[in-house]
């Protein structure tokens, strides 16, 4: 096209310096803004982590579960599996785009379908991760200052002394005179409280005194990169003096694994990402049905598959970063 021809259409979009259609370009710029949103979250996570750099939970000790393998210590394997599922669904998506370029309807259908399945498996896995994280495993005592004290004992593993966690339910000694949950219907009307933790600090303290080998582990990371374990006397002292409430699992207020901020960011960032995956699956389903009923076949262009593909790859791209900053670093 000569300049003279293009000139007339310049303000009508006649010039295409970026050689990309309007829709595709806008998808790219949406991705830029979304990438900045995510990096805002991740940078905020980094801020909080640098703020508590000596007391942040160690991801390997938090995410140690694998479905159907109870009591097996499997750090990160499940997240690695999830990462692989998402990369794999990215691959089927790009194969669908490629088949679209060749106007091969049946292949686009199959690959879109596989992509949707991959997305659903990923969202399901994330729900399972959340569930495990919320339920928690061992429980801990939160101090007045908001720090977390966990329990464990040294066990001999192949001639090496290893610190193994012990659940609160294993050591706590039930006491009389339990406090009853205050409900809205009695006492002060319409003022309720959250359900009480399964044990009181008093019961845990008695349990700690009764079990001679159990020690308290604080959240402070020592020079070897491990959490500091207190001596027997310091353990009892710490619980007696500072113990405030028993914490089981994690939510937006408390977190048995360490700083509550860790749980907040976990829910927020993986939740926001999960929401993206969910809406990606929805978009993919819409496009899938459009492919099936032949909309793009009649249009002789499968560019919509390409656009939704860009979004889907972006979701994968974000996960690669979430995986690194939440589970690895």
């Amino acid at each position, binding site marked *: 096209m000569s300049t003279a021809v293009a000139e007339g259409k310049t303000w009508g979009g006649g010039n295409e310096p970026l050689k990309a259609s309007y829709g595709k370009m806008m998808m790219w710029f949406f991705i830029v803004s979304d990438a900045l949103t995510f990096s805002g979250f991740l940078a905020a996570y980094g801020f909080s*982590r640098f703020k508590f750099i000596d007391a942040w939970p160690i991801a390997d000790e938090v995410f140690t579960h694998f479905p159907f393998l109870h009591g097996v210590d499997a750090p*990160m394997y499940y997240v690695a599996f999830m990462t692989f599922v998402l990369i794999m669904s990215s691959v089927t998506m790009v194969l669908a785009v490629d088949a679209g370029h060749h106007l091969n309807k049946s292949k686009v259908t199959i690959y879109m379908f596989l992509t949707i399945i991959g997305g659903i498996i990923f969202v399901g896995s994330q729900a399972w991760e959340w569930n495990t994280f919320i339920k928690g495993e061992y429980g801990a005592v939160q101090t007045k200052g908001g*720090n977390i004290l966990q329990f464990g004992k040294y066990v001999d593993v192949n001639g090496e002394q290893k610190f193994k966690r012990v659940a609160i339910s294993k050591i706590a000694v039930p006491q009389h005179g339990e406090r009853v949950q205050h409900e809205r219907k009695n006492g002060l009307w319409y003022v309720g409280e959250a359900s009480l933790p399964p044990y009181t600090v008093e019961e845990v303290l008695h349990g700690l005194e009764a079990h001679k080998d159990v020690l308290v582990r604080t959240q402070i990371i020592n020079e070897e990169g491990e959490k500091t374990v207190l001596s027997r006397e310091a353990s009892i002292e710490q619980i007696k003096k500072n113990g405030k409430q028993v914490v089981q699992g994690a939510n937006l207020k408390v977190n048995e694994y360490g700083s509550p901020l860790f749980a907040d960011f976990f829910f927020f960032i993986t939740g926001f990402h999960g929401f993206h995956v969910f809406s990606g699956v929805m978009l993919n389903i819409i496009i899938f049905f459009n492919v099936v009923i032949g909309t793009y076949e009649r249009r002789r262009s499968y560019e919509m598959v390409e656009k939704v593909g860009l979004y889907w790859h972006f979701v994968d791209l974000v996960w690669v970063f979430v995986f690194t900053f939440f589970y690895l670093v």
Partner: protein
Amino acid sequence: MAHEHKLEIFRGLIKFKSNIQKIWGVLILLSIVTIVEVILGIIKPEWSMTPVLGMKLLNWIFIILTIFKAYYITWDFMHMRDEVKGLRRAVVWTTIFLILYLSFILLQEGGYVFDVYDQGYIKRDF
């Protein structure tokens, strides 16, 4: 439809015959990198614990490998390799610049707040 795909990765070191072959090649590359990351994350080798620029060497390795993966996802899965230079730069440089800027500021500030706690101006070990 004439869609031109550039079929070389690693600056022409590996050249694929077709676009589909390139997709599988990139998948293998990404899988290998992920497996390496997981293995490093589980064994945490002694040599990788040396501090470099305020972080453990291992963490830098993870970040570099992540950017490596991000590059191949963007360039080959999202076909950034086939777009014109103008679009590529508008998208990539804008994002990289703003992210670097934001993370520098926030991490710097986080380190400062840690020092404030650490030097005992605010007590939190109770």
